[in-house]
């Protein structure tokens, strides 16, 4: 395959693949949203002092930590029906939402742990340390974006499954190598700058904490 051919091929399919990557972002953001809401409730309960609520919250947090997301994805894909009937109307349960739900379990555990620490810092009026939650949250979003590629195994039309569609439609051996590499480039271009920015933010915050301590 000549390099111009490869560029041509990738260029032709770029709108299709970029649309797939948009799905990855959407799935991840929804997973973060759901996970943050529930995780925040758990973190709040853990701060409620000794008692059954705090204990149950800790248990739930531990539970979410030990659930393997990849297996849970299959679990939800198989066990949530695709359509619900309510009051005579049909509501579809989209498969991408199943992916978001599966991913959100990991987010719940993460938010519960990290927000718990952040809220403790806020109680101690250590605001810089509280703010550390933001870069941690964003870095975790990147982990979820990468994990969202596994949604392809349950048939979500995100970038990896669209890669497979392109490969099936175009054929040829080298196509595979280039299409997958191209898809990886999307993840790198999205994640690396954000990761660096968050690393910088974290460094600045840590410097502020140290300055305040000395």
């Amino acid at each position: 395959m000549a390099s111009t051919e490869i560029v041509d091929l990738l260029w032709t399919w770029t709108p299709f693949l970029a649309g797939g990557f948009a799905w990855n972002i959407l799935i991840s953001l929804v997973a973060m949203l759901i996970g943050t809401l529930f995780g925040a409730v758990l973190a709040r309960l853990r701060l409620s002092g000794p008692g059954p609520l705090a204990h149950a919250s800790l248990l739930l947090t531990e539970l979410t930590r030990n659930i393997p997301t990849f297996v849970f994805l299959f679990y939800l894909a198989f066990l949530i029906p695709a359509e619900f009937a309510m009051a005579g109307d049909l509501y579809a349960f989209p498969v991408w939402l199943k992916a978001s739900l599966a991913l959100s379990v990991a987010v719940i555990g993460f938010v519960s742990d990290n927000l718990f620490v952040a809220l403790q810092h806020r109680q101690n009026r250590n605001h810089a340390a509280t703010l550390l939650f933001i870069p941690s949250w964003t870095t975790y979003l990147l982990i979820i974006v990468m994990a969202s590629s596994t949604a392809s195994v349950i048939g979500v039309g995100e970038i990896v499954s669209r890669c497979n569609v392109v490969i099936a439609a175009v054929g040829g051996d080298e196509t595979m190598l280039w299409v997958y590499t191209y898809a990886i480039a999307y993840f790198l271009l999205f994640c690396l700058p954000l990761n660096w920015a968050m690393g910088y933010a974290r460094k600045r915050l840590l410097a502020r904490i140290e300055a305040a301590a000395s």
Partner: protein
Amino acid sequence: MRAPGWRSHPHPANGSKAAVMARRLLLLAVWLFPLLALACGRTALAAPPTPADRLDLIEKRGALIAGVKSDYPPFGMRDGNGRLIGFEADLAGELARRLGVRLQLVAVTSTNRLQKLEEGAIDVVIATLGDTPQRREIATLVEPSYYASGATVVAPPNSHLSTWADLRGRKVCATQGAYFNRPMAQRFLLELQVFNGTRDTRLALRDGRCDAWLYDDTGIVGLLADSDLANYETPLPSMMVSPWAIALAASERGSRLEQVISDTIADWHRSGWLIAAEQRWAIKPSRFLVDMRELWTRLQPDGRPLCTRQSKADGDQWPAECRNRFLLSSADVDGIQRFGLLLKERAGFDVSIIHDAYDRSLFLHGLWVTLQLMVACIAGSLAVGCLGALAAEAGLPWLRGLVRSFAALARMTPPLLLIYLVFFGVGHVIVSRFGWTFDGAAIAIVCLSTYTGCAIVSALLDATAVLRQQQAGFALRWRTLAQSLRLAYAPVVASLINVVKATGMASVIAVPELVSAATAIVAERGNAAVMMNVLMITYFLLVLAVVQFFNLLERRILRRGEH
């Protein structure tokens, strides 16, 4: 030390041993409860949320949603624009036309077609589905059948295969969900390597990962048309010839939808429409369609057609002569155990891994492979992490830069994509240049270990930076590695636990681990609720065991640190 907010998955080891145990048990109970609730509630949840008849739903929606294959030319495939076309897509189109609704095609695989049907995502499956008694238990298979196929193998040139017995004990690639996988594996003692889709199986055969490909004889023509399999041969006779049926959800048995489709197929046979469609797609003329046309146009002595529906009293069925007589009897349930069957009969839980020897060995083998994957990934990640950190700290600035940038890149590459890229993309280049093939499990271990190892490199380097602040002249060497590891214990263990959880990803390249085993059993038996719960609980307990192991290790290390 690290910023307090950094630890993403801390596993604190506080509390006495008994308290920890109690908590674990409670945790397990909390976990099991929703699972069982889900399992029980499933019947209520998944019970067809449809109006009395699916046909009403289709008319209300104005569209027929049909599942067809996308990787089985010329029966179901994609054209240059990614649209689904083929012999079976045409059947779906004609069906929709007769129902007077639009057609919406959905790509399905052998693994998920009956599942999608059961959960209501699609109305009908027209996807090379062979009619077997077992499948009749989990779906409604419409008679008459519209096509038929048998099992044969595709082998590389000069394979020297003359009988099926020649394949005994050899590695044979197969596609998940094919009805003949299990009986053929049992009868000829094949060592099956089961892949998720036709494309993946084709690549595996071409790259020499197996000696032959167990395949549907109808698919062979489309397969051999492909240039890179042009010289491949089909040396063995077809076995287990099975008719193909259009499938509806199990709840549609006897419904109007079934009747309409059944009448339509009968018309197709009578008018020769199927033979015309076969010609249109340049499929080798099938004996089955010729025989069926003859059967469905045959007249009785009194001049009436032989195949007409019998009276209501006889269940409105086609006469026995016009039904599938040559159904397979693969339901050989050996090693029956009372408990499993009792559960199935009393509670409706089909725990086939208890009462069925084949499913049980599949599952246990999956468990064994998963355990090996977990151990290998932990060891591999630690090796990559430690060697990477040592290389970065070796005192060579260029090496440090190289390791750091490689680690940053690898951490931002989704492991699933990495596995695809290495297994299919790079794997093929290596095979065609050097003739080397790599085991799928090895590739999964390398990819997952690299991804996780790079996170460990960063953790170790951060810990080393802290140690350097505390002790002037600290340098990360083989001897001081333990010190850095101890300081970076929490993030390193969090990474290792994540890799243990991710081992299921190896299933995408046909490594026969737990997820593969569970989905294969579901594809065959349709016991999704039970198998998914079994899978989830097994995985959960495995992860819990690994977490416990690292907690124990941490206590040991802390105790030693105190002395």
